[in-house]
């Protein structure tokens, strides 16, 4: 087995060599989007775009863990919280431990702490098989939230931390929604670039081997625990980046923002979008985070008003049905409320989609090419290995 260092070196080499050709279209797109399109949307839209970007970033982080290395992490929110709390505890005047540190000093600290916690959590659990990891991470996500809730001397508990120092670029301070959107966009692109480079590297192939069959991977000389730990730490670091950007954006860091729901959201994005695939993650984020927000917009309500006739048509049908049966169905709500009503049921839809996607399209709606092949033609070895598996 060639050394890890050499493989990391290779990633680096290729990264530097490839930047111009690979990044050029993305850079152009970024500039075009920030200059031309950004000003066409108001704050409501920008807030939605920010959230989509944030969740896409988190999704890419979790994708490394779940999609690439095949480790089911149900406590991803813990790393998100670590990032947010690092920035808030050391960078907010209301914090009892304000360190008066610049935001840009806190970001690497947040990333480091995120990765460190990932390693510390992964060390004991990763030698075990995946199922235990799922439940331990689930418990750990809750522990972090309960700690944040009760360690009043650090986190101010549910009163939360606010007035967090904003990122200062020297020539401007990032404080409005638009600027934060550009920031998350840059972060997302950076994470995209780095994770996709790692995936194509030796490390990425090792993850893939572990994901497909851990025993075979170990037999081939891959130190599975070590690589799993790297995947876990990478994902954790990305989660912390998301948290570090989220904290100054929302300007209120409190335990209630770090519930299991966040972990489920991110996991759903990765699963439904397509495991192991960055494009799928972005699409998943647009569908699962963007659409429920969009449904609540004024524009949606205005648009839906065009369908008032549908209500006029269907209500008599409902009335007729009610007179025939004992069911007393309510009238359809006003068309402008349809979007909002639908948004209320988003988690019911998330859950259902996760099952349907697993059963009908286990590779996600937008699968990665590699995984698609595997799922359609599972290698013999895997079939045999999965005999004992649910």
């Amino acid at each position: 087995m060639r050394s890890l260092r050499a493989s990391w070196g290779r990633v680096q080499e290729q990264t530097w060599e490839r930047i111009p050709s690979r990044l050029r279209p993305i850079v152009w797109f970024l500039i075009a989007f920030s200059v031309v399109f950004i000003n066409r949307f108001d704050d409501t839209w920008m807030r939605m775009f920010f959230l989509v970007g944030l969740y896409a970033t988190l999704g890419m982080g979790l994708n490394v863990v779940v999609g690439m290395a095949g480790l089911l992490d149900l406590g991803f929110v813990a790393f998100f919280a670590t990032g947010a709390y690092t920035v808030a505890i050391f960078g907010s005047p209301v914090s009892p431990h304000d360190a008066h540190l610049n935001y840009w000093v806190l970001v690497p600290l947040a990333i480091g702490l995120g990765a460190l916690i990932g390693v510390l959590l992964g060390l004991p659990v990763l030698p075990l098989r995946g199922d235990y990891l799922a439940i331990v991470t689930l418990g750990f996500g809750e522990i972090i939230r309960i700690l944040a809730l009760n360690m009043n001397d650090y986190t101010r508990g549910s009163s939360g931390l606010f007035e967090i120092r904003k990122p200062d670029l020297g020539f401007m301070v990032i404080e409005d929604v638009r600027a934060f959107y550009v920031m998350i966009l840059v972060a997302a692109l950076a994470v995209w670039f780095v994770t996709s480079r790692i995936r194509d590297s030796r490390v990425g192939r090792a993850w893939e081997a572990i994901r497909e069959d851990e025993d075979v991977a170990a037999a081939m000389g891959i130190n599975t625990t070590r690589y799993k730990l790297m995947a876990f730490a990478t994902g954790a670091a990305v989660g912390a980046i998301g948290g570090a950007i989220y904290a100054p954006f929302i300007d209120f860091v409190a335990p209630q923002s770090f519930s299991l729901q966040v972990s489920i959201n991110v996991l759903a994005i990765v699963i439904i979008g397509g495991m192991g695939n960055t494009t799928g993650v972005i699409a998943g984020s647009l569908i699962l985070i963007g659409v429920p927000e969009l449904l609540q917009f004024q524009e949606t309500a205005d648009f839906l008003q065009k369908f008032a006739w549908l209500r006029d048509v269907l209500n008599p049908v409902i009335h007729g049905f009610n007179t025939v049966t004992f069911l007393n169905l309510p009238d359809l709500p006003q068309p402008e409320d349809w979007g909002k009503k639908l948004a209320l049921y988003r988690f019911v839809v998330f859950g259902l989609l996760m099952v349907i996607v697993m059963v009908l399209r286990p590779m996600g709606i937008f699968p990665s090419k590699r995984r698609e092949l595997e799922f359609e033609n599972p290698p013999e070895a895997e079939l045999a290995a999965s005999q004992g598996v649910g």
Partner: protein
Amino acid sequence: MGTKRTLLRFGLGLAALAGLAAIATACSGDDSSSKSTATGGSAGFTAAGYKAAGLDQAKNVTVDAGANIKIGISSALSGDVKSLGLPIADSAAAAGDGVTIAGHKLEFVREDDLCTPEGGPAAADRLVKAGIVAAVGPICSGGTRASLAIYDKAGITHISPSATAGDLTTPARPEGPYVTFFRVPVLNSDEANAQAKFSIGTIKAKKAFVVFDTDDYGKDLSQQFQNFFKAQGGTIVGSPAGYEKKQTDFKSIIANIKAAKPDMVYMAGFYAEATPFLQQLRADADLKSLPFMGGDGIKNDELLTGAKDAAENAYLALPGTTGPKFADYKAKYKDADSATFGPEAWDCATIIIDALKKVAKDNGGKLTIDLKALNEAIKNTDIDGASGHIKFGNNGDRAGAIVRFFQVKSGKYVEIK
């Protein structure tokens, strides 16, 4: 092997980062004591505050002929706090029922703030965009804190019926309190003070055991109660026991209560948890007649229907009075009696409507509203409302506080005079 060395380096890097974190923590420990005075304690609205909101000069908005005047409502319309949020939204909207100003109807635009810090600003953005002239809400402290700046930037005055966290009206910014924010609920400290007085004076309790919801509201209220109770000669026995929303198993806390032998149990939280708590407390024969005192989050009809017999004899504090206009409110909103913060929400909307009537100018069918004058009219509010007399102090808090007490008798809340 090279792998090992790389991993070692990886680990060392992380250790260095961790060390950095530890150093940062240690450094910050030194000056934490001197920092705490930086926030809070502002004296009231400042000229700079008005300038920041763009309300240092007239700011006219025009409502076209035949168009409605839009008033925003930011409340929890879904999620866990919906049973609190929906009646608040309905009560506020009821205040505008049938009201016209110079021939223009009122239109209430509802947005769901989910009672969360994320939901608050999102709802605020949507309301501002919808072209509202003023708003009722947000209803929760976290959501309010996160949206103060958005309303302020737009120069839109908003009145919260229920955000009670102390620091909302004393933000740490040089411009002082947000001039666009007012609120009508009685603050936690006033409620806790009255509860402590009542516990010692009427219940004759000397030793209290404290149970609290670990959220912003429960933590603050229970802390304030402990301070007032001790200051007035009472003792807190046992460690105050915290619980999280949705907890149903209170048996362990109850064993602690039994061991501490208090004269009363004080609970700061919501009815959803008070219901199983009381049921489990009263299931224990020894604690059947131990006096129980709760606050505004617990006094809800749901407690009576859920806990039934177990709720008997419980004491509950309710800030605010049933004001002279409560009958008007009840005529428009049939569930008025059970809507916690409903009268406050009705009053918020009434304050806005009254102010609109004063400042809206008919301009040949069109209506001109000066947001600065509207803000001023709201600030000078002096009315009798459904929740008692309302005037605002000099940073947007309600001046004067009345707290009433109730006891559950035969499944009903009976006011104790």
